[in-house]
């Protein structure tokens, strides 16, 4: 899509592009011997920010050593600072040992600081970074280095129930905003030394932690490598949500279809990891992405695997059916009622015609209006606070629905069609796929309105062509349908019994295929023989 790229960059050209970037790089200058200078310097760099706490004090009573701790209020755990730093340093110091001759720095480090996570900081940049991410800095007078003490403890939303991907059977927990908690949640599910975790900072200003997780030995190393290169390619001022990353690393930008799957459920991520996918976690968002992604993964929900196989299969087929309904229902209605009336049974035709008696608009405009109205309603009810949302939907149903029909502006049949479309678009488990369908519905309606079924057929062919051309991290998007792979059909249209899904998806990884070794359960023979 070079063409579009060019135009877009032309239009939205950043005026300061090419100039040295606006953020002030912190100089990598070393710490000074003199404590006072250090304090001044730090205060200066942070512009006396009011949430910076500086407390200077003396260690020991006879030979006093001047020291100071810095921490960012709210990010560091002030209670712990009380107990483990101030108390132990100010009160419980065995006086004799502190003599100017010997190396008090390592003395403190080795014998007195009763905290686990201690690192040395020798220059301002790293020191400030860790200070701002919640660590405590302890500086001694007369030493050109200081301790960064890990005492991060900020207010943080506890692990709560999943809001968007609810299940009836299965774990309820969902990811939170803090990266650590999320990794912990995943580790809780996979206790395997091969579950590896790599973290890097992305974003010049935000310095957001982005980590990728995969199971060594299952994952295809090529894909891990690819993920690394794509992440390293990113140069952006800030990452606030996984969406930023997604847009920057996906294979194809100009496609309505999502090529990266994301979820807020740890169990889904665990399953993906065991299929040999790579998980990308971003600090500050409860959404975790997995690559590579195929189309089928948008049609699977966690619950398919917790229910029994037949139920799972049935529900899944329902979904595939619904995606067609929500994509084609309005266009089919338009096409058939305006071009191919001979395809309706006589009685149905008569009753439809009766409903349309006196409807002023052509069917296509009618459909367009109703779909539009519905989209508006949905958007409104999503953005509204819950309480108002309900009233909005009531207004919608009453006004748009009943009133419009009674007024004879739209036919009842059209209303039914729109309603069915809406409901079946809600059936799709992945919200962003539902969005795709919503988008594609309108061009299909255009085609239907001008070329009838012929147009619809052409449209469908075009969509399928496009989907077949997509790839996600080198894996064909439509696999295992195309290229067809019999072994992988066990988890696409159907959800085979657990004992039958004994290999991992072929196209995602080639090695370490074996998954289930247990054989189908045997029926216990008749116990009361003889």
């Amino acid at each position, binding site marked *: 899509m070079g063409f579009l790229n060019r135009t877009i960059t032309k239009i939205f050209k950043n005026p300061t592009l090419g100039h040295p970037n606006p953020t002030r790089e912190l100089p990598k200058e070393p710490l000074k011997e003199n404590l006072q200078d250090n304090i001044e310097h730090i205060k200066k760099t942070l512009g006396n920010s009011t949430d910076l706490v500086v407390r200077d004090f003396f260690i020991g009573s006879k030979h006093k050593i001047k020291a100071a701790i810095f921490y960012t209020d709210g990010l560091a755990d002030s209670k712990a600072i009380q107990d483990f730093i101030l108390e132990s340093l100010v009160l419980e110091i065995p006086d004799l040992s502190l003599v100017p001759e010997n190396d008090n720095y390592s003395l403190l480090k080795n014998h007195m600081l009763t905290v686990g996570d201690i690192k040395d900081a020798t220059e301002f940049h790293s020191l400030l970074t860790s200070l701002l991410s919640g660590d405590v800095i302890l500086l001694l007078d007369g030493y050109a280095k200081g301790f960064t003490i890990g005492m991060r403890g900020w207010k943080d939303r506890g692990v709560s129930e999943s809001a968007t991907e609810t299940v009836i059977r299965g774990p309820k927990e969902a990811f939170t905003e803090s990266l650590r908690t999320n990794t912990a949640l995943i580790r809780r599910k996979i206790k395997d030394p091969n579950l590896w975790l790599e973290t890097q900072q992305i974003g010049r200003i935000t310095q957001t932690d982005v980590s990728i997780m995969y199971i060594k030995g299952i994952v295809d190393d090529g894909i891990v490598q690819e993920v690394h290169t794509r992440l390293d390619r990113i140069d952006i001022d800030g990452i606030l949500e996984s969406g930023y990353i997604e847009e920057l690393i996906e294979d194809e930008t100009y496609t309505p279809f999502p090529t990266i799957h994301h979820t807020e459920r740890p169990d889904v991520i665990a399953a993906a990891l065991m299929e040999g996918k790579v998980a990308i976690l971003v600090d500050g968002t409860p959404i975790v992405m997995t690559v590579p992604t195929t189309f089928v993964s948008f049609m699977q929900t966690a619950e398919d695997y917790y229910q029994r196989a037949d139920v799972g299969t049935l529900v899944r087929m329902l979904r595939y059916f619904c995606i067609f309904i929500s994509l084609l229902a309005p266009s089919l209605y338009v096409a058939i009622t305006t071009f191919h009336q001979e395809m309706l049974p006589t009685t149905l035709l008569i009753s439809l015609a009766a409903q349309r008696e006196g409807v002023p608009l052509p069917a296509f405009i009618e459909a367009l209006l109703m779909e539009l109205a519905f989209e508006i309603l949905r958007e409104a009810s999503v953005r509204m606070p819950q309480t108002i949302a309900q009233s909005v939907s009531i207004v919608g149903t009453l006004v748009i629905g009943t009133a419009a029909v009674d007024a004879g502006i739209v036919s009842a049949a059209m209303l039914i069609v729109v309603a069915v479309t809406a409901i079946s678009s809600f059936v799709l488990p992945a919200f962003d796929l539902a969005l795709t369908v919503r988008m594609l519905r309108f061009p299909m309606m255009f085609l239907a309105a001008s070329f*009838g079924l012929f147009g619809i057929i052409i449209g469908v062919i075009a969509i399928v062509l496009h989907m077949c051309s997509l790839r996600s991290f080198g894996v064909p998007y439509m696999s295992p349908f*195309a*290229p067809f792979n019999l072994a992988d059909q066990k988890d696409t249209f159907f959800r085979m019994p657990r004992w039958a899904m004994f290999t991992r998806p072929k196209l995602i990884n080639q090695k370490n295929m074996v998954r289930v070794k247990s054989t189908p359960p045997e029926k216990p023979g008749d116990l009361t023989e003889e």
Partner: protein
Amino acid sequence: MLEKGKLSTRQLTILVMLLTIGDSILVIPPSTTHYARQNAWISTLIGMVIGLLAIYMYSRFIKLYPKLTLIEAIQKAFGKWLGTVLSLMTLMFFLIVTVGSMREVSDFVIAEMLPGTPIPPILTLFILIVIMATRLGIEVLGRTGEIFTPMIIILFLILTVAIVPQMDIVRILPILEDGIKPVLRGSISITAYTFLEPVVFLMVLPYVSQQQKITKGLLLGCLLGGTIIFLTLTVSILVLGPDLTTRDIYPSYNIARRISIGGFFERVEALIALQWMLTLFIKVTLFFYAFILGLSQLLKLKEYRVLTLPTGLILVSLAPIIAPNFTYYNTVFDNYWVYYVITFGLVLPLVLLGVAMFRRALSKDLKSQN
């Protein structure tokens, strides 16, 4: 190489099948039944045998000209001048077939789906997806075929089963009342249009991933496609009888119209139309692709996608004027076009094979002499 995509054997098979069904399922029943009357199904079988032989020949072809498309092979066999001329004629053949098929598309759509719609918009819409597919390359086309094939087959079976109640065996009786000749005459068209058009795959075979499995793939695809054609023709005779089959322009479409199961499963001709659009799309795309690729190979171009749009324009504006009316097109189609297809589908490859074998023998002799 211009085309980077790779085609799996399964995809090859599927494409061959879809191409074989192609437009034959639409236009073959009347023209075959016209000569062979109620014995048209025999003509189909004859055609299938010849077709399988031809297909087998194609697979020999790729053995003798490894890694070469038809155009390149012609160049290699006949040298610069003669080669260029022959290549141009072959390309023209591809183009003409494409135009013909598109004419059929528009004729069908206007006759049965959108009466009263002018031709150009329909063809424009159609050629746009063809161009899209060509630009995406042969691999994507293969995948698309994989997606649609199950649907096509299932639909076909459902419809065939649904029409069974209206079949009447006496309609294909008596067998061979006027001897074999009419049957042979009928089998000419079906052989040409159904079983010789896979010659276009000589442009594609080099891009198949497992070269050794090509023969199997080709034969299987041809067999599947042939079976579907055979079923269609037999069913339309069993349901409509030879008379209506000849008189109707699209008999199989009328059959779909007659389907009525329990008063609710009826008026399903849209499904049929869907299948045909798909198979026609595959056929047109393959020939279009062959033309574009061949042209750029002949002229040693580095990039073939840029040629798609202007060629599309040519096709869209050529399709309406290739024949002033349906009758003219049909006459040519029945009487002369067949031999055109045979020339390039049967004769040309045979000649090429001959040349290759001759060369091989010659080189052997030389070796043996010294």
